């Protein structure tokens, strides 16, 4: 039966921004007062340009289906691997009446859905703004909508938008759209079908995979779909991933962190082992570094993290294999974000490390999970709407509520890492006590076994075992020395910092007093005074100046800001290092030469890391000149950018690398200087590796002396 409101039948309307202007045939297009209107190019701005990937917009349409209380939503792709293809999104939700199409679906930038009003099935509406929808609808040259509202059985409404119609008008409102009403086909249930045809871009394999992943993660695969919503993509990629997501290897996690913060901002956390036994418990006051009374100013939330130890030995006793878990984590790993049960992208997408898990791991290597070996979710109950999605769907606004939520999750992670580190330390202490006993026992067992051998073999085996034992002891001694060396160096570093800090005051007094003697002497004894002692006073001032600069060199390395991960411009760091080392170089009559490539290559790192990579080879060069023949001594820093790699060469005209095999220069403790630490180049190697780069050395390079070649992947120039 047709709706009674025949007056609406075939009514013409216009697509408008911000409000609906129902426009009957006799209504003037222009309002009788000045008003804002929108050029059709705004559709492109808000549609295509706010849509980083096709999956963003399509998932927004799926969210609309969820809001319409659909249980199933199916996306069908037809010829999408070429331009001009078609995408159909069908759901079995409540459908839309003519008024809803006019006043909600066709209104851009304003969602009529109130998040305060639950849907018929008790869902909190998750779609908003309508801009994601526009992005999806603009994917094709045409879009058609057929909707069968549950409140009007037997009726369906259809509308078609041809985006080309908007090319030849001056304002969006000029294009007339028509809603048709017609009888439904028999057996046609309630719901909505949207067809995007004449796709402007093809969907790549990666696009389809991303869409499949996004759909599967949308309705929280961590639990058994509490929302009762099943989005589906009719594509083989989806089936494969669906199978994978359903595996849910949570029970194989080495440990499970669960933390909760209530609506009063009080938190607690628990870590369980893979058998479900509680390992550690934290009250609110145990989390974070702030005072116990500081609350988290965020909505109530729960944070779960499952961390895996991806080693073969760990998986021997498990039901699943290491490879299965690896594949699963590769596709679904990361920490996902769910608000009102629905996933918010891009948190947890490949490469998205919003809780800085990897940075934390880099800072505290041990006992901290990374995005490669863990999966997790933060689920938020944001009834008061304290979190706001960004218009371009690239996540949530970083307002106080979001930052506090992040702080809660980060505090929980830090607490867990700290507790696990304490456990590891305790374990190590026990092992330290136990290890020598075990070695002695094992040695005794081998010696007893040797005694049982026939006489001829006994002697040979005894000799061989003795050689092995000596080598092992030598190795242990070397490692022990290395540990001692690190400790000594740390103490030396701390002492140097204290000295640098405390020496500034006396140096200042020396300088100022020397200057005062000069001025008082001149005043009292006239120009004869500077003639007699002037040069000596200048020398005191110059030496005090050098002392002050050396102190500055040490202190500058302690700057907290340098240990903060951020965008680092490598050339800037090189210039700063050279400036800091110049007083030392001048004293040793060494010239610095900088040949930097054009541009400002940058990467994401700590300034301290880049500084150590540059400083250590230069410090080695300065040291090497002590053994070099007299003459002009030069250290050159040269950079070159080859595609996305920054090549840094540190060259000198010293004696070159001698007295040590080239491959051994990177080993800790290997040095050719009596008071050398042998750690400088080890630090360079380890730091460069951490930054994803490579380092190499030439004994006698282009300048005749040592040449260190560092290659670092950069993010831009």
């Amino acid at each position, binding site marked *: 039966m047709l709706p009674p409101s025949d007056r609406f039948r075939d009514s013409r309307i216009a697509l408008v921004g911000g409000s609906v202007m129902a426009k009957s045939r006799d209504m003037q297009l222009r309002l009788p007062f000045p008003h804002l209107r929108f050029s059709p190019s705004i559709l492109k701005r808000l549609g295509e340009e706010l849509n980083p990937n096709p999956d963003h917009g399509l998932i927004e349409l799926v969210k609309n289906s969820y809001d319409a209380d659909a249980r199933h939503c199916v996306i069908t792709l037809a010829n999408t691997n070429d331009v001009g293809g078609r995408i159909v999104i069908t759901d079995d939700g409540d459908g839309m009446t003519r008024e809803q199409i006019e006043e909600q679906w066709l209104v851009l930038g304003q969602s009529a859905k109130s998040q305060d009003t639950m849907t018929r099935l008790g869902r909190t509406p998750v779609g908003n703004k309508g801009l994601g929808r526009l992005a999806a609808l603009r994917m094709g040259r045409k879009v058609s909508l057929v909707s069968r509202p549950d409140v009007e059985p037997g009726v369906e409404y259809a509308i078609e938008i041809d985006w080309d119609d908007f090319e030849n008008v001056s304002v969006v409102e000029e294009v007339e759209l028509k809603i048709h009403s017609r009888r439904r086909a028999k057996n046609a249930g309630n719901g909505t079908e949207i067809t995007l045809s004449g796709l402007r871009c093809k969907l790549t394999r990666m696009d389809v995979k991303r869409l499949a992943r996004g759909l599967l993660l949308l309705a929280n695969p961590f639990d058994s779909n509490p929302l009762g919503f099943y989005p589906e993509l009719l594509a083989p990629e989806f089936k494969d991933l669906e199978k994978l997501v359903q595996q849910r290897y949570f029970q194989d996690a080495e440990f499970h962190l669960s933390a909760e913060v209530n609506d009063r901002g009080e938190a607690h956390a628990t870590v369980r082992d893979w058998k479900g036994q509680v390992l550690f418990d934290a009250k609110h006051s145990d989390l974070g570094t702030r005072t116990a009374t500081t609350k988290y*100013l965020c909505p109530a939330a729960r944070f779960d993290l499952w961390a895996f130890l991806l080693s073969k030995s760990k998986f021997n006793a498990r039901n699943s294999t290491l490879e299965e878990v690896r594949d699963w984590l590769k596709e679904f790993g990361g920490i996902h974000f769910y608000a009102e049960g629905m996933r918010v992208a891009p948190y947890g997408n490949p490469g998205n490390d919003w809780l800085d898990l990897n940075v934390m791991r880099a800072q505290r290597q041990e006992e901290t999970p990374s995005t490669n070996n863990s999966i997790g979710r933060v689920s938020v109950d944001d009834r008061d709407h304290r979190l706001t999605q960004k218009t371009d769907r690239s996540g949530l606004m970083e307002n106080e509520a*979001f930052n506090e939520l992040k702080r809660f999750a980060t505090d929980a992670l830090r607490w867990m890492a700290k507790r696990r580190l304490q456990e590891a330390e305790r374990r190590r202490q026990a092992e330290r006590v136990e290890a020598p006993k075990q070695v002695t026992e094992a040695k005794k067992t081998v010696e007893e076994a040797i005694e049982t051998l026939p006489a001829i073999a006994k002697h040979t085996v005894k000799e061989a075992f003795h050689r092995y034992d000596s080598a092992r002891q030598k190795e242990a001694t070397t490692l022990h020395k290395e540990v001692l060396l690190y400790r000594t160096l740390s103490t030396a570093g701390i002492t140097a910092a204290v000295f640098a800090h405390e020496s500034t005051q006396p140096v*200042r007094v020396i300088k*100022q007093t020397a200057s*005062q003697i000069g001025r008082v002497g001149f*005043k009292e004894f006239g120009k004869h005074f500077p003639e007699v002692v002037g040069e000596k006073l200048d020398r005191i*001032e110059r030496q005090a100046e050098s002392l*002050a600069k050396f102190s500055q060199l040490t202190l500058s390395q302690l*700057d907290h800001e340098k240990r903060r991960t951020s965008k680092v411009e490598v050339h800037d760091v090189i210039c700063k290092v050279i400036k800091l080392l110049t007083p030392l170089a001048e004293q040793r009559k060494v010239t610095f030469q900088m040949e930097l490539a054009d541009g400002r290559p940058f990467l994401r790192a700590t300034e301290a890391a880049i500084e150590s990579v540059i400083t250590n080879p230069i410090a080695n060069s300065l040291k090497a000149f002590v053994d070099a023949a007299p003459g002009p001594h030069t250290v050159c820093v040269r950079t070159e950018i080859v595609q996305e790699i920054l090549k840094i060469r540190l060259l000198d005209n010293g004696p070159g690398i001698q007295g040590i095999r080239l491959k051994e220069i990177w080993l800790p403790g290997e040095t050719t200087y009596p008071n050398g630490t042998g750690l400088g180049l080890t630090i360079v190697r380890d730091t460069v590796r951490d930054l994803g780069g490579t380092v190499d050395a030439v004994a006698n390079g282009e300048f005749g002396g040592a040449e260190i070649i560092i290659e670092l992947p950069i993010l831009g120039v």
Partner: protein
Amino acid sequence: MAIKLAGYDIGTAAVVDDQDETRQTMCDELKLADLDVDPLVGPFGDINDLLMSICKSSQAAVCDHRLYNFATCQGADVVSRLYKRGFPAVLVTTFSNADLDLFRPFRRWIPALLPADETTDGDALIHGWETCLREFQDDFTPTRRPWKTLVRIVDVDREQRPPMVYAVVPGWDSSSKVRFPITVIPPELQTKVCAGERFFAQVNKGAESAAELYFSDFTYPG
């Protein structure tokens, strides 16, 4: 002997420094500039006692920042309070980048911050006092004049104590981030501080380096 600066007579200068040798050196420097000196010897339990001692017999002051075992306050606080009382004072201290953060909440009221690792002669101190005296008469140098300007927050590091705010001041340099402690912002506005938020503040837009920038009188446009 007194000197006249911007219509103001300075005969005696107070020297506030916890280190005996440094204090004496500074006194010698001022004597060389023909000024009488009042070297203050602590300890001072309360900042007001210290301020009173400074103002009692002097017309200007030179103050170190770190006052260990000398006073329960820091030099930057002392100098800024003297400024607010219309008393010219110069802060002479050794500082690192991290210290600049500590000075930032007071910087609006510290026109003369002299690095102690450079020789501080009488001329530099007198110039510092003169800058203060001119500012009291609303005569600012271009690098110090306050302007109401937009401050856009780009990041907040709540791990640091106190939390550090990273902001861009488009009216000064739209491509540089400036760091300052959250305490620069009044407590009632601190909850609004997060990336993307914008505030108005009095800022010396003519500053030639980030170290010279000051922020005061924050307001939230809403």
